[in-house]
């Protein structure tokens, strides 16, 4: 039920799902297309005076990369994140996931796409107050295919264990601290092993210490799972942890100057490398 299924009929190569990531048997890992590629995105909000939020944004995010998006308020960071997550539709431009154009994905296929390929973390955590930590993390499985639902309980617990919240799985959000709530939100975003995690100011409402803890966690998960992270932030200390910092201003990405916080990894993480090796051996 990966992107391949989401996009059935739109692609000639039949994609093969491997641990939540997108590969095809024919893919040469060294020449894989970027995980996220947006080209010439425009978005204008209709109002008495139309607001041009995005003015031809283009960027690429490689597989397993962690990218920070910075910029002043109103520069279009969140809108860009929403466009990448298919929560918002651009007026012009294309969004590609692993080389597949998802811009014109049919409306009924969008939830499936979001479920399988994108995990989202918000500044306000957006946990459902009537559900326990476990139930919040299990939420994506409730709407997933039956096969996934069966394993969902285990996977949700595994996600909670990863973020160190397994012991508090039966607590409701109002019984958790801000940092703990954000950890649960991170676990929810990761529960279905999405290819890309989009985080909008994940530490915006947290104090410095808790913010550090959450970012340690995100960084560790990025290393462990090889998932791609795009993080919108105003906080330089958060951005510094990313592989690359992109700055937006007035609806555009400012051309990159200087080096990234740490070099962009050209190769997928170990888990993917092992999978690729075995795939290569078969061919």
């Amino acid at each position, binding site marked *: 039920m990966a992107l391949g299924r989401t996009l059935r009929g739109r692609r000639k190569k039949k994609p093969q799902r491997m641990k939540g990531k997108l590969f095809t048997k024919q893919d040469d890992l060294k020449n894989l297309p970027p995980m996220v590629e947006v080209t010439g995105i425009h978005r204008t909000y209709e109002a008495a005076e139309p607001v041009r939020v995005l003015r031809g944004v283009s960027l690429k995010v490689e597989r397993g990369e962690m990218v920070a998006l910075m910029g002043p308020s109103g520069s279009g960071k*969140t809108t860009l994140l*929403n466009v990448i*997550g298919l*929560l*918002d539709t651009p007026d012009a431009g294309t969004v590609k996931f692993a080389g597949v154009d998802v811009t014109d994905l049919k409306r*009924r296929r969008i*939830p*499936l796409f*979001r*479920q*399988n390929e994108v995990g*989202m973390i*918000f500044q*306000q955590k*957006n*946990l*459902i*107050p*009537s*559900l326990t930590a476990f*139930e919040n993390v299990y*939420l*994506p499985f*409730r*709407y*997933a295919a039956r096969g996934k639902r069966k394993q969902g309980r285990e996977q949700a617990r595994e996600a909670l264990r990863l973020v160190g919240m397994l012991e508090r799985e039966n607590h409701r959000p109002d019984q958790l601290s801000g940092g703990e709530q954000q950890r649960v939100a991170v676990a*929810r975003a990761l529960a*279905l092993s999405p290819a890309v995690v989009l985080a909008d100011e994940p530490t915006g409402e947290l104090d410095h210490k808790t913010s550090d803890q959450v970012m340690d966690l995100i960084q560790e998960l990025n290393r462990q799972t090889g998932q791609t992270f795009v993080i919108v932030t105003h906080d330089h200390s958060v951005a510094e942890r990313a592989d690359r910092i992109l700055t937006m201003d007035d609806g555009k990405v400012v051309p990159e100057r200087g080096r990234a916080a740490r070099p962009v990894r050209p190769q997928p993480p170990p888990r993917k490398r092992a999978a690729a090796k075995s795939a290569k051996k078969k061919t």
Partner: protein
Amino acid sequence: MTLVREALRNIWRRKARSALTIFGVGIGIFALVTMGALSQSLSKSTQVGIDYFKNRILVTKDSGGFGGPFAVGPQLPASLTDRIEVIDGVDRAYPTLSLLADRDAEFSVTSAPATIQGIPPEEVAKDRFKLELSEGRNLRAGDTGKTVIGSSIVQKEKLGVGDTMILRDARFEVVGTLSRTGARPDSFYFVTLEDALGLSRNVTQFTTSTEELVTNINVFPKAGTDSTALTERIESRISGVDGTPPEQLKRTLEDASAVFNLIVLGSALIAVLVGSLSVINTMIMSVTERRKEIGVKRVVGARARHILRETITETGLIGLIGGVLGFLGSAVLTTIINSITRQSGLELFLLTPRLAAGAIGFAVVLGVLAGLYPAWRATRIKPVKVLREE
């Protein structure tokens, strides 16, 4: 189960509002069940009446109106039976005499006074319509001072087969008890016509009448005879009598029952509709309050049908809880009223399993229908908009 558990939690989240909404639905279902039970009782009684009069013409004293089945007291000369029997198309005829067991008793909405029914046992035995015995035996020709009693009298007077009691100053022995019919025979003391005439003489001893007077004459047409035409023949041959053919009786009983049912169920339905409007109102408020939650669910992959299903489960549950509470309330009330009116020989309400299942099912369906509009609104929520809201 997760779906139901979350719906229950959501209902519980706004306790006061949910309680008021459930109360609203409950009142509607309470009214529906109570009125429905009243209507069921009437329908059953009507059906017994229709079965009883199915193949007989009831001849009563011409009173210028419909009094037949409810008439009591000596009214017609019993000798008219012989004159009727010779009319072309009549198979057989027999008189019956109805007397109030308590001379001072009156009919009212909540009470049907116990009545003595004087019948010729040998003729009644030939009837197609039979009342079921629960104990003992039926009356036989030649019985004197014997009675067969209806179920309400058994309960009220605590009488059984072999017991004796006084009816209008005369001693009677109970030889049989009848099963419950839910209709007038439950309040009858069946005695032989001779015994009833004897009791009637006690009443009419100060009148000048020297004739044996009965209340009505049951006339059975021969097979293939048009009962309406036969009724007209009887009325034209014998002056001062009024005949009611079975078709007319059936129509009259059914019409009365239908009008009554329409009024009571109509008013109950209005109450239920008001309840369902409160469900719509509550759910619109809930959906508005939970816009952000719904947005989050859409973000993690919920489709419109998931949101629809969750909202409708919640309203369906409100309907179910309201329905069950409304039904229980009605069951308590009708049981109390029935236990009071049973003393007067009448069970006003008939609560059947079908009515219970129908009312609760109706409440659930209504809850689901009431949830459709709020659910549709919920599916229209755009996550990108609501997630920005503070």
